């Protein structure tokens, strides 16, 4: 039976540009949440963010393309290239439809669009440039990657807020099932701009803290909201047969299972129980054909508010509570802030790096963990053999998604 493999990773994150920079930053425990640069955010009751400070767009994007696109798309273009290079992937010359781009989007081209709307209202319609129509909308990054790299396969864009990164993988599986062998998935976000930050602040979930150690503390007794981050990850998924046929050298792992549900409860409040979140996890395990006892690690959503953290631990406890040993749970978003659509994609990359090296990154600023029966909250990085990792994500409004990643074993794949 053919499997779905991850054969390339491209990371543009607050923790670093490129997989090794990101990973060494996580393993060494170097937080990337700092005072916001570029504008004064104090009016918004926010001081900190996870900005991608090492990103030099000119190193990744043609200047002619840069003027047509928002920072969010620059990061997507860069991450897509990094993923393809990591995979050693060249689209097959004899089949232009063999490669797809299926990304998650969140808030679109924020800075570009704010600039154009500002000009429109300050100076009039003629100040709006020729690229607003293609820079702002949610499909911009997908379209630009497809055009730059010549990928003509079935492409798509899904928006499910923070769950989007996992959902792009879930939808890409349908594309592969229907005969397209390679799909770029994941996404990036660039919402650390005045208007986008204000918009996010209105939901009341951002931490007002000025010191990083006080700001975004998932599963800590002092959790009081989250910090916004930017960036994300793009991954190359390939059908195992196609990957083998082209001699892919690099297999990060297998996408073994996926499940998604919606709370269907309230337009912004989470459901008062974790029924649907737990169901998403169970669906993904059943899809992968594994039991809760086989899971070595859960990469949590880690929302960072007491209520949402408690619901996540309830969901995990419900699914994994029967195990003989508590399931290890970590929340690597705590190092970067929440990157919306980019965040769950980055967590998939992080989980694959953990599988490769047998290292579980800890959760930042988790000094005083909440009570979590049946759950082993990972405070410090640790060495642990990993075969099966579950990545969880939630999106504002009630989206719940769960992805099962498995270490790739060549002998099974060729059996």
């Amino acid at each position, binding site marked *: 039976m053919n499997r779905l493999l991850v054969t390339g990773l491209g990371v543009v994150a607050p923790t670093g540009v490129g997989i090794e920079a990101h990973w060494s930053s996580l393993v060494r425990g170097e937080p990337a949440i700092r005072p916001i640069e570029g*504008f*004064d955010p104090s*009016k918004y009751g926010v001081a900190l963010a996870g900005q991608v400070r090492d990103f030099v767009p000119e190193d990744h994007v043609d200047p002619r393309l840069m003027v*047509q696109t928002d920072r969010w798309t620059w990061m997507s273009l860069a991450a897509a290239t990094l993923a393809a290079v990591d995979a050693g992937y060249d689209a097959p010359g004899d089949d*232009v439809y063999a490669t*797809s781009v299926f990304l998650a*989007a969140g*808030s679109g081209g924020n800075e570009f*669009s*704010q600039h*154009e*709307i*500002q*000009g*429109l*209202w*300050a*100076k*009039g*319609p003629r100040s*709006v440039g*020729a690229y*607003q*129509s293609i820079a702002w909308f*949610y*499909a*911009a990054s*997908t*379209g*630009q990657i*497809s*055009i730059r790299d010549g990928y*003509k396969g*079935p*492409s798509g*864009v*899904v*928006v499910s807020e923070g769950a989007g990164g996992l*959902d792009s993988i879930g939808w890409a599986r349908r594309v592969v099932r229907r005969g397209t062998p390679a799909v770029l998935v994941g996404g990036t976000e660039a*919402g650390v701009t*005045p*208007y986008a930050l*204000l*918009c*996010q*602040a*209105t*939901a009341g979930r951002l931490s007002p803290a000025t010191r990083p150690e006080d700001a975004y503390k998932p599963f800590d007794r002092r959790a009081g909201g989250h910090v916004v981050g930017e960036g994300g990850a793009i991954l190359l998924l390939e059908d195992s047969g196609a990957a083998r046929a082209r001699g892919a050298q690099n297999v990060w792992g297998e996408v073994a299972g996926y499940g998604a549900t*919606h*709370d*269907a*409860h*309230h*337009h*912004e409040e989470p459901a008062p129980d974790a029924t649907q979140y737990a*169901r998403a996890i169970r669906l993904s395990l059943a899809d992968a054909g594994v039991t809760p006892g086989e899971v070595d690690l859960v990469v949590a959503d880690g929302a960072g508010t007491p209520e949402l953290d408690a619901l996540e631990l309830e969901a995990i406890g419900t699914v994994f509570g029967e195990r003989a040993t508590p399931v290890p749970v970590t929340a690597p978003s705590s190092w970067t802030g929440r990157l*919306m659509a980019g965040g769950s994609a980055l967590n998939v990359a992080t989980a694959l790096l953990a599988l490769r090296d047998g290292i579980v990154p800890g959760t930042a600023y988790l000094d005083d963990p909440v009570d979590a029966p049946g759950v082993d909250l990972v405070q410090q990085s640790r060495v642990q053999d990993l075969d099966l990792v579950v990545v969880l994500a939630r*999106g*504002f409004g*009630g989206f719940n998604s769960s992805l099962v990643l498995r270490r790739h074993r060549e002998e099974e794949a060729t059996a």
Partner: protein
Amino acid sequence: MSTDRRRVVVTGIGVVAPGSMGREGFWDMITAGRTATRRITFFDPSRFRSQVAAEVDFDPKLQGLTAHEVHRNDRFVQMAMVAADEAVADSGLTFGTGGADDATDPDRVGVTLGSAVGATMRLENEYVAVSDAGTHWLVDPRYASRFLHQALVPSCGATELAVRFRASGPATVVSTGCTSGIDAVGYGSQLIEDGDADVVISGASDAPISPISMACFDTIRATTANNADPEHAAKPFDARRDGFVMGEGAAVLILEELEHAQRRGAEIYCEVSGYANRCNAFHMTGLRPDGVEMAEAIDRALGQGRIDPTEVGYVNAHGSGTQQNDRHETAAVKRSLGPAADRVPMSSIKSMVGHSLGAIGSIEIAATALAVQRGVLPPTANYEVPDPNCDLDYIPNTAREQKVDVALSVGSGFGGFQSAIVLASPDRRDA
């Protein structure tokens, strides 16, 4: 193998379209060949190149939304909710009511909502307030609405529908620009085919008639400059066409697994027998005249339902009314259907309801499903002067009574997306 495939049928339709109210109002209007394009009334368009749009005279409270639903949601979500209410009522399904033995399990109900530009109208209006009409880059939070996170991220539209109908299956917003409305229905169908849902509330909505949207299409001259005659400004396939007319609206379809629909004796509009999309990887706004990638999407969509090109009885065109689109699309249909293209009737309802970006794909699927069900093909309005590059049968100006077993609806959008969906009459299925 195809006999094992879970099949998808349409059992409910709801429409919010310009110039009409509800599904039947919409159908009456487009089959009468009446246009809803007019001079923009939402704001003073006099400083804009294109001053024409197809606006919906939409009163959300009259349509049943509560004050709070209106307060917290952009117009695109409001229109989606109203269209969904009509579609669900039409389907006869009862969601979230519990108790009844035959009630659909909420966990088996999904949502796929397309939108190209989401809450752009609300984002712009709020920006005017918080920036003091574009004078402050560091916007002022004191003037901000409580619900701007929902405006920033369009997934709120899927959330509102999931909450409204207690649909706890997979939910997402699909945002592939101007093919969003086809792709959302295509993805919804895949959810059912793959066994992840039995029912999907699927459609699309967009409300882009705001200054920033009009301005951004002005500058690239994609929209019409025919301001002198707004009622006849949208002229798809006509040699005099000079750009699309902006529109708005929503359509929602209830997609249902065939046996699920049959068990409850549901009335079936049509089957979704194929869907495919491709990218042209050419240009964000430009199209090559040969239509190769759209043709590939059409071929694949027909292939999924094992439908021969000669069986296609109607093509619901993208027909935006730009010079390049209509030429591109005509070439694509000829490439896919071959000699049959010369006989197949093809029309663009954008001539009447405008181009509502992502929403229009679902509105056109609604029109196509109704055409299959009722044996009437809506026309292309304002068609007078033939273009030698567009030489198919565009059903000029007057609807046509014609039984259709298989219909095709296609779309094309910024970013290079090309999508095709195939609807088949239930009569054909049982034959």
